[in-house]
């Protein structure tokens, strides 16, 4: 059904669940391509750079966070790509989905309360509101 799925990844369990959904969907139809995109927030760059001794170490620290996603994609033997980009999460995910002509975006829901949503902004609801393709929001039920 879906040819190209973009799944938002931030290293959290919520996003891992989203990735698992992407895998299951991709398995249904051979030839489906999954793009896992991790958006590194500009606001966090300063702390990231400060807490690492050099760019190479920083890169490998970030790569490590994606390892279990890579493992899951490999194990499912589907076509996939993992991408890391800097920017604001919601616009970046949308831009990437548009550029790669994705027909589905899968994104985990952090389960924020209304106040947190006002202050921090819910990435998933912003993506859902502005996306030009279908969006699946995966709820994390503990």
């Amino acid at each position, binding site marked *: 059904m879906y040819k190209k799925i973009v799944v938002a990844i931030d290293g959290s369990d919520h996003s891992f669940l989203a990735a698992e959904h992407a895998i299951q969907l991709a398995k249904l139809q051979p030839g489906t391509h999954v793009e896992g995109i991790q958006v590194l927030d500009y606001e966090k760059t*300063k*702390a990231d*750079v400060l*807490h*690492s001794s050099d*760019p190479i170490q920083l890169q490998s620290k970030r790569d490590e966070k994606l390892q279990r996603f890579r493992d899951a994609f490999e194990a499912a033997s589907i076509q996939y790509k993992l991408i890391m980009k800097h920017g604001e999460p919601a616009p970046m995910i949308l831009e990437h989905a548009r550029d790669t002509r994705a027909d589905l975006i899968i994104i985990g829901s952090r389960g924020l309360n209304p106040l947190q949503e006002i202050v921090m902004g819910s990435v998933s609801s912003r993506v859902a509101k502005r996306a030009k393709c279908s969006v699946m929001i995966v709820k994390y039920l503990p």
Partner: protein
Amino acid sequence: MATAKLNKQWFGNVRGDILSGIVVALALIPEAIAFSIIAGVDPMVGLYASFSMAVVIAIVGGRPAMISAATGAMALLMVTLVKDYGLQYLFATTILTGVLQLLFGVLGIARFMKFIPRSVMIGFVNSLAILIFMAQVPHFIGINTTTYIVVGVTLAIIYLFPLITKAVPAPLVAILAVTIISLFLHIDVRTVGDLGEIKQALPTFLLPNIPLNLETLQIIFPTALALSIVGLLESLLTASIVDDMTDTDSNKNKEARGQGIANIVTGFFGGMAGCAMIGQSVINVKSGGRGRLSTLVAGIFLMFLILVLGDWVVKIPMPALVGVMIMVCIGTFDWSSLRSLTRVPLSDSVVMVVTVIAVVATHNLSIGVFIGILLSAIFFVAKISKVKVEKSTGTTADHTRYTISGQLFFASVTDFTNSFSFENKSKHITLNFTNTHVWDDSAVAAIDKIVLKFKEKGSSVTLEGLNKDSQALMHKLTTNDSAHVNVSNH
């Protein structure tokens, strides 16, 4: 090829660069004024500095899209000099700072940046935030209730306005709103005009009016040295952050030279020494700035605004500026370091905290950094000075083998020597050095001593497994050649 690259650095992103440059210019004005007040000079000195730093660094800097201007870190270092000797000496210091930075850049300072541990850099930004906050205290504690309210309102606007739109910098909106409110309600607070005047004129070339002699140099050199080091530290850190944000690389030595040139020019045009700013550079990249044009636009637009709006700038209430500065402190402080305080090795936490304490106690970032580096060097030496000596029975019953692992140097020789008991009755002793490295004369002397002691007890001693460097050092430094009966290498 080079022209194509330069062309891209300048005109690869014209629309984004112009827009972000304008945003940065707006965000720079309150900071430039506040940092001038910290340094104890007229707001114009900081504004001229921000204009000239930005324009010059746009052309000669090594990191496109990075913003340099008058900064808090630099302002804090000049307070005493300005108070004791005045503005002319500050201009001279700024020029000398530039000369030193240019020199450091030519000598390739960037390669030494890796010797500054990250805990020292974290301590650097944290103490910078604390110092900027402390500098605000006299402007809002114990003046009157209105002052507290204005600071509170400013902060509320700064943190709540982005929920409406992020297109306009919130600090500017806060300053505008608070200034207008205070003008209409005739609120009794001090304004920027009470602390200095705004000239609606372009900066002009001037030679600092100081005697050119050794005494002057003695006055300005210590401050210039501290400024040049702190300026490069913050600039190269900022460059790394912009590198990461934009996924591009930059020439750090060119940046150091550029900072030098920018400070020299700034000093001659009546500005105070500046450097790159983390906060403003992040704003620039977030607003879409990627090329040199963004920095140039920021500088030129800032000057344009002052020429046009100078009359209004003096009406800005001081508590509004204090609010903006408190925001700068909150943004500068590395809050994640508090969380990681218990997770990182204890020595790292100690270095960070000691760096902060040293800076806050001395009000001098360069002293704190120096103490931090020294302390982490000591910790490092302590860490790698652990040696282990393992004793095992050799091939025959009267043969004992000692296997040494760890680094052998001045700090580890005592432990090394104490690891041997000379009660041994074995006829043959082998010392295995495969897992160690002999670094200095103390190590060689210690080995000599041990070999001699074994020989006194009537044993024959064989040294094995010495690596090439260690062998060469042993050969060069050993005082008791006969001690080394057989130096065999396997």
